[in-house]
């Protein structure tokens, strides 16, 4: 498992707002584990969703969508928002890809308020650059 964080962000999103605003620092957690070959990616994705529903308090807008990786592998993306607490609106993306028996999970956590189409495109491009673990030139995606 590898954990990365984006640069620290300023304290205020909008200095004109008087209520508490918590800065959200983007983070990425990359995790790989051997899950065997009995389950399809769809089943694994369903299990991830079930686990998140059972475990994440106040989760909102859980949805899944197909996520194509750059090397042609078809992946899945789980998206949800955490409940708004302490003035922070946090969105999480969990991108999954299955290479043989190895499941790679990329957990990207970002500020839902400041996330725009351009930033989202950049994030997805970085996530999609993930390679199969057996590749000789395997790389870790960067933001």
């Amino acid at each position, binding site marked *: 498992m590898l954990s990365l964080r984006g640069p620290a962000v300023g304290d205020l999103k909008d200095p004109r707002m008087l209520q508490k605003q918590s800065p959200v620092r983007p983070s990425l957690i990359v995790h790989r584990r051997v899950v065997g070959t009995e389950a399809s990616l769809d*089943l694994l994705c369903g299990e991830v969703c079930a686990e998140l529903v059972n*475990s994440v308090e106040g989760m909102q807008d859980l949805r899944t969508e197909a996520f194509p990786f750059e090397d042609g592998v078809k992946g899945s993306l789980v998206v949800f928002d955490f409940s708004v607490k302490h003035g922070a609106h946090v969105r999480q993306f969990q991108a999954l890809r299955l290479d043989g028996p190895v499941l790679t999970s990329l957990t990207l956590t970002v500020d839902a308020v400041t996330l725009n189409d351009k930033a989202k495109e950049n994030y997805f491009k970085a996530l999609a650059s993930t390679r199969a673990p057996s590749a000789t030139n395997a790389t870790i995606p960067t933001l």
Partner: protein
Amino acid sequence: MSIRIGNTMPRPILNDAPQAREHMVKKFGGDVRGSTVPCPVLSVLLNENLLTPDKDGNVSVDQLKSAFTKLGITPLVQHGLVKGGTSAIEGNSKSQTLNMFKLMGSSLDHKGSLGPLQDGGFNQKHLDQLLSCSKDGKTLTLEDLSTAQQMRMKQEGGGLRDRLIGQAEIAALLLVFGKPNADGKKAVKIEDVVSIFKDNKLPADFAKQDVGALGLVWNMGKMAFMQLTTAAGRAEAGLAKALESPQRLDASAMKGLGAAMCPAGMRPKGGVGVNAQEVGKLHLAMQN
């Protein structure tokens, strides 16, 4: 039949009213408070007559230490348990007695425990939920117990302190009662779990094993890491990192703590006062 791959969670089972434990009430001379002892290990010790409380529910610290010795709990861990227990329950770490009736509702009675003995009696649904976490259907490994704790933490909304107390309890349970399963992993057999939680009896083939502080901390660390690597654990870790809030004690931190507690003084090859063979023996607990 449900298919579960890796350490994902089964569907949680909702709370149900607990049943009074008649055999425990009898042990306390008909006092219904006997049913409320929430700790499975203490319940076993009481039911097996290794602890003999007075009519007010007090057991002596000496008797408690003696009973722990019979379970294989080493003196250092015994000392920590007794001091922590007397301090939390009697308000004085030098107290020479510990009251079994005060365990429920004390500061040691935490959220997110495995559940079968909480709420003043035995709860079959919590036991069923715990057993449903077994991947092989025969034993509960550290990973299974870790999943069970995560489900209970979610159900009861426990915090970091609750999680740590729970992890220590689970690690101790596994070290005292666990044996290698078919995959070679240390695990508690399903029938032994039922025996401990429902009947409050020692497993039929119980054999004492050394339960030291190092093994305890190491297993807590492994469990913390397992919880961190589930989808829910990563979700929680991602949120904590994004908000720069305090993060859960993870495997690296626990490994550091384990190294700090190393009985060989962090000398893996031995050195003054300890040879390599002795170091190997001291570190054996970390392999289980």
